[in-house]
């Protein structure tokens, strides 16, 4: 019997109902992947500064040992997913559409999978101070595992600057195909709940809401049963609608309040964390395990056996594909994440990173995009936009080269959810326009900043030079005057002396 906590929900604007395609992988239990021959662990798997390597080529490392430490306020360390030898630190294709080389540690597993010394764990982590929990989460290298990869400890520390009263756990998983959070909630509800409560403790919240879309009744049940003895933890069913998993829209659904533009949900007293992140927090605080593996959905009709797999960070995607039986038909697109907001991958060489929640291999039929036609101003995009923007106008402005005009009508408020492009009958790649414009604006800003800085420095130098010159000139003038005065004085003296001599002479002669 399904009973959930009842709560008044609020409607969000726009949104779409893509076919959820979750049945491919939803009934596949989480399985472990065999050890890959090589692991490629990028130093940058999170938002913020890349980690600083602590090992060098040839080092032998143990499982869970820190490989690179976090650098700066917003950063995260990376750890060895298994025991083995460091083969090198160098450029390797990134888990990114560009496939650019980024600094990556290559580790050859020794097949022993031997744990190193893990930090001691408290017998009751709920006795720890909030900052101690946040510190442990930071040390474990935990980042937002829903895909955003923002360092979780930074979010746990938001209590210092904001008054936080509610923790929301995002179990919406509104992207089609993806089922990894669904499986985690079904298979490990107790562990997930423990992680959630630890985060709640760290944030000092009064209540916790676990929000799960209504297309995951089993996950809802499992979490509800796990949480039924805790009155301050509510499990709430969400209407199935994309982009329900967008943090700001999830909070609006639950509270009816909109997060202020350019602000955080913390402005409303709410922090949102992902289900997989909660599990990672549980493992870090109960067992001292750093974040070295994650659960990922491999799906799409081009893959033989869709699955939910626990994989080590750094596993090449090709290893996952092989494990799932390889490709059965011609591959049209390879996507990291879901089909709505995921990004295309250049090849299966790239490694799994902390934020990878899915690998989709789509066939031509699944990913077919119709021929692009001119905009017919049908306003489907305006109706679909959850942010109240005018995608057609923004794209028209960007196409015409006036990026500033597109900013004025809200480009920077766009969350790139893709609802507009999903419904566009003219198949206009609206998100591509927006991403281009955002990137272009960022680089322009950088150039402008650089120019500004250069100008500032040049002006400062000129001013400095002027000042030196002026000082010199003044000093010179001063000296000249002094000399003149001296001369005059001397002249006066001489004159006086001469006069004196004269007088003496006169006197003498007299």
């Amino acid at each position: 019997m399904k009973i959930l906590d009842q709560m008044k929900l609020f409607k969000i604007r726009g949104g779409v109902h893509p076919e959820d395609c979750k049945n491919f992988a939803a009934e596949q239990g989480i399985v472990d992947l065999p050890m890959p021959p090589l692991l490629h662990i990028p130093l940058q798997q999170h938002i913020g500064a890349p980690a600083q390597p602590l090992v060098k080529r040839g080092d032998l490392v143990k499982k869970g040992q820190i490989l690179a430490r976090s650098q700066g306020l917003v950063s995260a360390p990376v750890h060895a997913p298994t025991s083995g030898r460091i083969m090198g630190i160098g450029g390797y294709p990134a888990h990114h559409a560009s496939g650019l080389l980024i600094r990556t540690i290559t580790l050859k597993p020794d097949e022993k999978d031997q744990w190193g010394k893990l930090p001691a764990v408290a017998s009751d982590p709920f006795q720890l101070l909030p900052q101690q929990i946040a510190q442990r989460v930071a040390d474990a290298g935990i980042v937002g595992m829903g895909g955003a990869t923002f360092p979780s400890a930074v979010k746990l520390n938001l209590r210092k600057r904001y008054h936080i009263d509610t923790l929301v756990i995002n179990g919406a998983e509104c992207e089609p195909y993806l089922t990894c959070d669904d499986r985690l909630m079904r298979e490990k509800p107790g562990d997930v709940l423990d992680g959630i409560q630890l985060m709640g403790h760290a944030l000092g919240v009064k209540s916790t809401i676990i929000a799960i879309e209504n297309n995951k009744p089993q996950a809802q049940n499992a979490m509800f049963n796990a949480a039924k003895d805790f009155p301050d933890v509510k499990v709430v069913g969400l209407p199935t609608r994309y982009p329900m998993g967008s943090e700001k829209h999830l909070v609006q659904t639950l509270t009816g309040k909109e997060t202020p533009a350019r602000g955080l949900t913390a402005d409303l007293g709410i922090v949102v964390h992902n289900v997989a992140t909660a599990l990672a927090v549980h493992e870090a605080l109960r067992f001292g395990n750093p974040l070295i593996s994650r659960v990922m959905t491999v799906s799409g009709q081009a893959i033989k056996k869709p699955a939910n797999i626990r994989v080590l960070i750094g596993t090449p995607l090709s290893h996952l594909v092989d494990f799932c039986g390889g490709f059965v038909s011609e591959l049209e697109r390879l996507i990291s994440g879901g089909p709505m907001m995921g990004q295309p991958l250049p090849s299966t060489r790239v490694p799994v990173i902390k934020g990878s929640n899915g690998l989709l291999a789509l066939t031509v039929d699944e990913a077919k995009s119709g021929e692009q036609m001119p905009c017919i101003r049908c306003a489907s995009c305006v109706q679909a936009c959850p942010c109240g923007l005018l995608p057609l106008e923004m794209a028209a402005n960007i196409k015409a080269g006036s990026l500033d005009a597109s900013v004025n009508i809200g480009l920077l408020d766009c969350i790139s959810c893709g609802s507009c492009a999903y419904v566009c009958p003219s198949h206009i790649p609206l998100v591509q326009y927006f991403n281009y414009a955002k990137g272009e604006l960022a680089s322009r800003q950088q150039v402008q900043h650089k120019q500004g800085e250069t100008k500032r420095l040049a002006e400062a130098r000129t001013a400095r030079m002027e000042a030196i010159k002026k000082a010199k000139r003044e000093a010179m003038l001063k000296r000249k005057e002094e000399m003149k005065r001296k001369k005059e004085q001397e002249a006066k003296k001489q004159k006086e002396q001469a006069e004196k001599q004269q007088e003496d002479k006169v006197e003498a002669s007299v």
Partner: protein
Amino acid sequence: MSEEAFISGPYNHSKASISKTMGLVMLALVPATVFGWYQFGLPTIFLFVITILTALLAEAIALKMAGKPVRTFLMDGSAILTGWLLAMTLPPWAPWWIGVLGAFLAIIIGKQVFGGIGQNLFNPAMVARVALLISFPLEMTLFTSPAPLYSQHSPDLMQSLAITFPGLLTEAQSLDGYTGATVLGYLKIEIGRGVDLQQALGSTEPLWNTFWGNIGGSMGETSAILILLGGLFLLYKRIITWIIPVAMLGTLGGLATIFHLVDPQTYIGPMTHLMSGAAILGAFFIATDLVTSPVSVRGQLVFGAGCGLLTFAIRTWTGYPEGVAFAVMLMNACTPLIDHYLKPRIYGRDKKGQPLIYNEEGGKS
């Protein structure tokens, strides 16, 4: 993997397309169209076919001249729809050249001159209709009384050809007595002559007939119920939203009610306004034209209300008995302005575009 493999997502699609949208609109027009064919016989069918074929030809010529892929754009269905809508607003027994000229005006002047599909400021079918009405007032106001197919009044093939292609056949055909004015046209004349409205109404078709459509009028405008059905189908399929039709018909009906209550001798009642002429066709199929109407909800409200207001004003105080085409075109001209001023509120911002500020409990400490 395809060449565009690295374009941004989403990598799935609602499967909507322009041709699908146009197809559904045409499907919605089918009942009223078929009724029009039945009602006015072969000459109407000739005119309908001629108009659509010419629209396609004009589109093909324009696309060729512009160097655009002819096949792709012809297949989107927009030219057929424009021709179709134009044919529906023409007098059913109009000669062939009205259809040909109208279709050329619609496609070339109304649409392609602006840059083709999606670029036009005015509804192409209305551009053509208004141009024809101003240039050929006689031919454009010769409305036939119904002569249903297979009835004794229905013209046979030769007579039909003579109607559509006047002068083609030497044998003079007797067509007298088949034409009459529309309800709105008749009332306008009678009111103009100083006849009491109630008296004039006594000699028009009963309202019930305008509802079903067995009255004289443009080919596809007579049956209010069938057009309404088509419109509801479009609403159900979410091709259009309720906003423009409701705003337009609501304003028209509301104004008519107020004026009719104040002075029933001079002002036509709301039901006659709504059921006659192009009001319903205009509200569901013409004012809702995607390209030329505003994109935001508030904008569509203003647009629809404006169409209703102008339709009422033109019908009531100008020399034209019917004003939907003029009204829609005038509002089309306002669309860019409406779109500029009435934008939706952006998430997390107030109406002025400033970020929201929360001061109550739970806000920033």
